[in-house]
């Protein structure tokens, strides 16, 4: 009679199942949303090095050797990156006979113009020591691992900074700096990237020192979620994800950091907003303005330099000329497929009566890969050779450069040797235009653009300039051949 398992439990379970299963089946299910946090690799905590560093250092190279004693591959890894080489892999470009490399090391821009001959100062943002080699040897030895500056990215920025020729500033306590090493903070990266162009937010418009300690309103990721730069720019063996447009022509998809890495392809509840994603980048709506905290440089006019006018770092300096800075800048919007249509290379002929593009993003309405992206467009007046019709790179910070003598002619002559570009003796100034994508400082969703920011007369987007017959809310969107 006694059974091991009481049958009434089976009965009870059956009856409950009959009642509960249909309820569970009919229960309304919450719409499961993709969790963006699932795609984030947590930042590894760096082991505190305070107690590991026991010796004193005679030179910064000693520090590097000390690092390499435990991290033997670190230098060789980092020396493969453009943070060290300051140039891209060689690429074949239309109009060039041979593949060319593009980077700070050999090209010019519309800001401080060029590095060649000015390394003494410019190397304060290079991760190597001993740039004085250039003056003694005529070239920098990119193969010497001892000169890799680990501290630039890993030391506490309050304890470490760089002086001239890529070396630590004079008063640096190398032991204290070495003891402070950790994973790079926003401030580490910002030491160079916030100050591109020679000052806070001069170059980018979407990267400035407010990101050291940002509010959620300013940057929803860094402020609201305390992201680091490396949270998105994920790094393996010192290979940092994400590529600057300025130093490239073509960028591999795999190298790009994208919103969709974490947020999925259809992140909005409203289908109509998701339908925008075929033609509109996330940044277009989610970065309504740039230079929210600090103004960014919109115009740099080298032609007015050298005069004894009242100086004020926001509008005029004798060394650099005149500036226009702006705050709360509404970006410009262009089609963009991720590559450059054109990148000015040293020696390229210009038409001085037309603005010359230092950088022009590629994209058009017919290109299915193109989306409308926000850009900062900065204008410059920079020197060119009126005889040879190409842009010139002066020696500025370098020895006897323009910033010493305020003599353009001399500055160009001195540069001939460094750049290999012949200077005819005649120069003038021409307009150049630089596009830089607005992609950082993503604001909270409440601040995102609304319908009427674009879909109205005099809205943000100039539909006809973008290639539409009119506002697509009335005229329909572009048809893309799939």
């Amino acid at each position, binding site marked *: 009679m006694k059974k091991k398992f009481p049958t009434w439990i089976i*009965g009870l379970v059956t009856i409950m199942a009959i009642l509960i299963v249909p*309820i569970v089946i009919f229960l*309304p299910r919450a719409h499961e949303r993709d969790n963006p946090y699932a795609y984030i690799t947590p930042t590894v905590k760096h082991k505190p090095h305070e107690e590991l560093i026991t010796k004193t250092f005679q030179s910064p190279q000693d520090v590097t050797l000390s690092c390499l004693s435990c991290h033997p591959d670190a230098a060789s890894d980092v020396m493969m990156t453009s943070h060290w080489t300051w140039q891209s892999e060689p690429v074949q470009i239309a109009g060039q006979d041979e593949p060319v490399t593009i980077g700070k090391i050999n090209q010019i821009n519309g800001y401080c113009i060029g590095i060649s001959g000015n390394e003494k100062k410019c190397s304060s943002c290079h991760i190597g020591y001993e740039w004085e080699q250039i003056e003694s040897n005529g070239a920098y030895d990119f193969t010497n691992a001892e000169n890799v500056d680990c501290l630039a990215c890993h030391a506490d920025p309050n304890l470490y900074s760089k002086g001239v020729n890529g070396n630590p500033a004079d008063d640096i306590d190398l032991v204290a700096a070495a003891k402070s090493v950790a994973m790079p903070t926003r401030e580490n990266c910002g030491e160079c990237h916030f100050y591109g162009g020679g000052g806070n937010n001069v170059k980018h418009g979407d990267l400035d020192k407010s990101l050291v300690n940002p509010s959620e309103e300013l940057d929803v990721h860094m402020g609201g979620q305390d992201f680091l730069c490396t949270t998105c720019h994920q790094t393996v063996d010192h290979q940092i994800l994400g590529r600057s447009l300025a130093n490239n022509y073509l960028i591999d998809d795999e190298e790009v950091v994208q919103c969709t890495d974490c947020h999925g392809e259809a992140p909005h509840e409203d289908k109509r907003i998701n339908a925008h994603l075929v033609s509109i980048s996330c940044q277009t709506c989610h970065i309504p*303005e740039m230079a929210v905290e600090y103004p960014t440089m919109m115009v740099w006019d080298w*032609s007015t330099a050298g005069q004894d006018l009242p100086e004020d770092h926001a509008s005029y300096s004798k060394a650099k000329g005149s500036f226009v800075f702006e705050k709360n800048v*509404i970006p410009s919007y262009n089609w963009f497929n991720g590559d450059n249509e054109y990148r000015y290379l040293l020696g390229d002929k210009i038409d001085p009566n037309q603005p010359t593009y230092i950088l022009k993003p590629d994209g058009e309405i017919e290109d299915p890969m193109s989306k409308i992206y926000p850009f900062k467009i900065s204008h410059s007046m920079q020197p060119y050779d009126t005889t040879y019709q190409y842009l010139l790179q002066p020696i500025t910070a370098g020895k006897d450069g323009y910033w010493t003598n305020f003599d353009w002619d001399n500055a160009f002559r001195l540069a001939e040797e460094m750049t290999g570009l012949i200077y005819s003796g005649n120069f*003038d100034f021409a307009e150049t235009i630089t596009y830089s994508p607005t992609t950082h400082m993503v604001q909270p969703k409440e601040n995102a653009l*609304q319908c*009427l920011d674009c879909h109205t*007369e005099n809205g943000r987007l100039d539909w006809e300039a973008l290639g539409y017959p009119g506002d697509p809310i009335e005229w329909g969107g572009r048809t893309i051949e799939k």
Partner: protein
Amino acid sequence: MKRKWIIFFSLMVFIAGIVFFPTVHARSTVIALDPQVTEIHPQFPLLDAQGKNVIDSGQPVSTYQTCGTCHDMEFISTHSAHSDLGLSTFGGAKGTYAHPWDQSNGLYGQWNPITYRYLSMDGDERIDLDTAEWIREFAGRIVGGGPAEYSTTGQRLTESDSEDWNWNESGVVEMNCFLCHFSNPNNDARIESLQAGEFQWANTATLVGTGLVEGSVDQFTWNPKAFLENGDILAELITIQNPSNENCTQCHGDVQTSQLPTDLSDCSLDEKSQSNWLAVTTGQVISAQEISESEMNLAEKDTLTRPYDIHIARGLQCTDCHYSLNNPAYYQSDVKPDYLKYDPRRLEISEYLTKPDHNFANSRSAADAVVSGATNGCENCHDARNTHDWLPFAEQHMESLSCESCHIPTIVSPAAQSLDWTVLNSDGQPAASCWGVDEASEATGGVVTGFSPVLLPRENTDGSVYLAPYNLVTSWYWVYESEQGLRPVRQEDLEAAWFKDGDYAPEILAALDADANKTLSEQELYLDTPEKQAAVAGRLATLGLKNSHIEGEIQPYAINHNVVSGKWAIKDCSSCHSEDSRVTQPKKLASFVPGGVIPEFINTSGTVANDLVYIENGELFYRLDTTEHDLYVFGHDRVLWVDRIGGLIFIAAMGAIFVHGGLRIYSARKNTHPQVTMTRVQMYGVYDRFWHWLHALAILFLVFTGFMIHRPALFSAFKYYSVVILIHNTIGILLALNAALSVFYHVVSGEIRQYVPRPYGFFDSAIVQMKYYLNGIFRGMGHPFEKTPRKRLNPVQQLTYFLVLYALLPLQIITGLMMLSVLQWPQIADWFGGLTYLAPFHNMVAWLFAVFLIVHIYLATTGATPLTAYQAMISGWEDLEVHQDEGQPEEQNGEISP
């Protein structure tokens, strides 16, 4: 070369300056909406009434001549509610209109206590406004044509005789095309001309500022430079367009187009209210702006991160919903066969442009349709059925509620609430109050809290009635008996009664000035006693106004704008399905009731409201009576006596169980237990037990979840009302299936005989059994009827179970299914009176089930031992006492355990 750079640089600085400046406030700008420019319109001359070019004649422009060159002005002016203003409904039979002194359903002839002044009837002894004065008074709301052009007898006003007004000199107001179709009309100059009585110049005045004409009321001069040699006007001066939101704003108010919302912090009904009608009467602000960015001092402003109106924010124009009825882009035939999705036979654009219908689509409300003949409800664009899967009884909700009921949860600005014309303040204005302003903070500028619209039953064009949001404006005013009938006291008479030489009249002060400071404060301006009323009535009597008395009315103003997206809509079930349901929540209409007069509903806005208006603590309240409108809101509505009787029976049963149980325990202790032989019988088969326990659990859950649906307030911790409903419905269906299967089993197996009481000797047996329960059980006597597998039930059980299983259960299942199927087959439920009857019935039977449950559970303890019956229903085997005196039970099918 250098100079070039300097020029370039200065240019850059200049451009940057332009760019930089507006960007400071860039996030808070509201972008001007696309004005729908019609660039295709040809150039044209401006003609006067004689058809001559105005530049030659210097006469006022005639829109009929000018626009009539191509457009059929006769058709347009006779197909326009904006123009008609009630003229076509003028002079109907008494009782047709809202007030006895009304003469039409429109602005021309219908009195409104908000604007107070009125068009007097012909032959009235005291004339408030005649037609000319009416035009001047309501200039801001008169677009021309209709009563501004024709008399009630259909004559042009210039041909009608009038002693008081020289129509030939003033001319009439032609329908003003410019006001709505030009990009830059001058409404102020137009109104000024009308107010000055220069009627024929009003349309010309509208052009001031375009460069075509200069001057003001007294003198207008056409500007020769604005005309080409052929007489056409310069194209660049005029942009002709579909009416933009700005055009509509001029008269309707607060269609937001500028950066900052109009300051709506008070809802004062002054002169401005005429051109701000929508906002003043309802608080609707039709703007794309985020509420949190408004300039108003709003409570919890930070949280209001939605636009005032989702449609405007999504780029819609007024005319997208309020389109011309014969516009071929929108036109829909009334008759559409099933096999047609779209009927391509419609007007050509050119035909439409010649005769565009100027009646515009409006809401589904029957009141709106009376004016314009066609409707454009939410469902014309939205398919709500596709997006409301989550809503239990979605169809039922949509039948009882307009979309706006949930999608306009609050109005975040003030609106008119009450108007007391029985008194006048020192400015000659009535005492007034606003919805949506925090009274306590009024001294510090007033925090705008906004308000929830009241839901009123609204009749639609298709005859259906559902709840829709409204604002209620309550007014009180003096009415007197004239020779011609009841009339509201004219404003000038009212002023004459209240004031004397610019001060309050002594008689008034004597009655009202409590603190004797010769002036009347807000608190003193209130006719709360018969004495005060008599003082005012006495003053009116001295003016010759007979039998003056106070009347009151409640005007509902429909709220259809300020719609929110699903994210902000009312989704919380408990906002309606609860004790303080939004549907029936009492609304305080006024904190005073002049003369104790309870105002009456004016159902001119399509409402069919006539519900509970009552005074409580001197304040006036309104409450919707759901039963009046065949509504039964679960969780809120209940029939009191059902709950009371059901509860009483339940409590009585509980009491009886306690007494009976107590006595049993007591007697069990006292009596010695005779040794009885026990025998073990298989009483219940597997299926018996299965259906029993499935029933038992299902009914238990149903009673419990049903109670939660019925009284959600008692389960406030349990917030998932819709889930409870889902569980209740699902289990209900399972129970119905189980009941059907078990009936099938009982019938097929013949077991049903166990439940059917045998009529022969039934009462005798029942009495014996009852006697046992009431007496024998306490004496330790055996059950009078032997329990055997073939005959398990005693006569009382038989009857009870028969009733429960074959009467109560089917009734409950049927009423439950009818409530569930009320969407698909509402007529079935309607046969039984609809939800208002079905629900309380279901509720009553539920009480009986609850009673049965506890009695059943208790009586199951009356077996050989208290737990025997339970064990039997679980294992199937029951221990039975062997009663020697009545003989060994016959051994039947049931096996005897070893």
